[in-house]
């Protein structure tokens, strides 16, 4: 369902300084699969994630999701695609600490100006699912690490995406929380989500529910 065809991505830091993040890679991910992208920082795995999320555009090649070419969508369409299909889990959660749990979770939906009642229903069900309903009005900065993690995941889930993308999700977590996270991933997979994780945390290697591990090295894939 996700296809990267002959993708090259070159970043222009300035006129004279160009960085090739990805060099002519091809990648296919089937629906419902969980893919782990391994590799050191700077290897290009984060770039692959951005491309799938239509957060960046390739220098050449195509990204096709569900038979639709998303790599050259104009910004507003790319954003709509992202909002409707992608749930993003960041390395450092990237929550807004001065907003409450509820406010953080509804953030992806703000520009839609949703109807109040429907919004409430959606929020409550998501918060229940990830077990933070009891803290919905607390400011995020007052939460424990585990609770923040759950808020981050809830936020990526609130728009009911088909694809979950996680960029180094356990990099700042201790073992317990990392294990916790993996269990949540397992559950998400069982719900039919397509999951792409970029990580160099060995906890992810050789997991039973991971479909494929792909190594990314210097902008190329090593299967």
């Amino acid at each position, binding site marked *: 369902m996700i296809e990267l065809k002959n993708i090259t991505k070159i*970043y222009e830091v300035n006129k004279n300084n160009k960085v090739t993040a990805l060099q002519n890679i091809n990648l296919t991910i089937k629906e419902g699969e969980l893919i782990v992208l391994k590799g050191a920082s700077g290897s290009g795995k*984060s*770039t692959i994630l*951005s491309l799938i*999320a239509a*957060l*960046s555009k390739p220098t050449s090649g195509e990204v096709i999701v569900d038979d639709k070419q998303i790599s050259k969508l104009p*910004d*507003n369409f790319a*954003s*709509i695609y*992202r*909002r*409707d299909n*992608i749930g*993003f889990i*960041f*390395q450092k959660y*990237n929550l*807004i600490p*001065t*907003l409450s749990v509820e*406010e953080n979770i*509804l*953030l*992806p*939906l*703000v*520009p839609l*100006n*949703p109807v109040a009642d429907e919004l409430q229903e959606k929020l409550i069900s998501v918060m229940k699912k990830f077990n933070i309903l009891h803290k919905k009005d607390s400011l995020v900065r007052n939460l424990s690490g585990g609770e923040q993690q759950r808020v981050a995941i809830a*936020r*990526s889930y609130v*728009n009911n995406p088909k694809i979950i993308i996680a*960029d180094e999700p356990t990099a700042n977590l201790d073992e317990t929380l990392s294990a916790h996270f993996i269990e949540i991933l397992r559950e998400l997979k069982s719900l039919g989500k397509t999951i792409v994780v970029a990580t160099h945390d060995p906890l992810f290697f050789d997991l039973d529910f991971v479909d494929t591990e792909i190594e990314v090295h210097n902008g190329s894939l090593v299967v």
Partner: protein
Amino acid sequence: MKNKINIYLIEYAVNAILRQKYKSIFIIIVFTLLTFLLTSIFFITNSIRYELDSTVEALPEIVVQKIKAGRHYDIDVDDIDNILAIAGVSDAVARVWGYYYFENAGVNFSVVGVDSFEEQYKGSLTNIVDKFDLNSENSSMVVGVGVKETMTRNYYKSYFNFIKPDGRLEKVDIAGVFDGDTQLESNDMIVMSKKTAREIFDIPQNKATDIVVKVANQEEVQTIASKIKLLYPDTRIVTSQDLKISYQNIFDYKSGIFLALFIISLFTFFIIIYDKSSGLSSEEKREIGILKAIGWKVDDVLKEKFYESFIISFFSYTLGITLSFAYVYLLQAPILQNIFVGYSQLKTSFELPFVFDFQTLFLVFFLSVPIYIAATIIPSWKVATLEADEVIR
């Protein structure tokens, strides 16, 4: 044009403003200060102009002054007869008045001579003539509040000694104190009989300071003025319309100067804002990156930034004009008032009348809010179009 207002976006914008406490407070303070100053200046000039216009209303339509060698000279009282003969002239009265410089206090008094049997050219003078008898044996006068205070301060309690041009003293009793129609004018004024005024200024019986002409029909003022000019080519004719226009121009000039100063400070402000907005903290960049990653369009980010700018600037604008209202009309604008009212040595303690003018509020609005928003266009755009993937690594 038809989008419903997005409350969530507004809430987010407000929250974003509150999150950057120091920057926001700085902007609000500077912006409020600027609007406050600007509005106050406009309010004060509007009020003063209103006062002055009311004064001008009370004045006669035409004033005829004799000019000799480019300078003001005493006019012949007999000229009145010829002026009265002009069609449309309802009355012509000779005025005897002048400025008396009181050296000890370093102030000027306006001395106005009246004759009780004549029709006065100003309502307030009629009141005084009725109230006080200025034709008693001893010369007497009625003074304004400010004059009374100055005289008392210099130990003149019940009379005053004028020093005549020939050096001799003329003692004049103080018969009373008055409030004029308009405080601006009457504060430094002294009213006495024409005879006494002539004594003090050494103006002979057949001469006067100038002649005021009352015209029945406003539309005819210009025509009559030209006729008088034809009769007496060595005179200067000042109509009340001329006065009104010149007052308006003076005030525009004065407020123009302040406006020029304001523009400079606004420009500086513009640059500061631009600078502050452009120098984005990595915090802010990251936040926008997150928003875009979770599905916000560039247009959404731009809209949010616009809400932020508008809320801050409009809030500061409102705060500024409210404070200005309080400052000018409740506190009577200490300090600033003096800059505009300083054409008489005597400090006028008059009350600024409340003049409400929508146009002023619009004017200040256009001079502040759109300019601030303009300063944020490019920085907001830069933020909104950041490559999200580069900032969230």
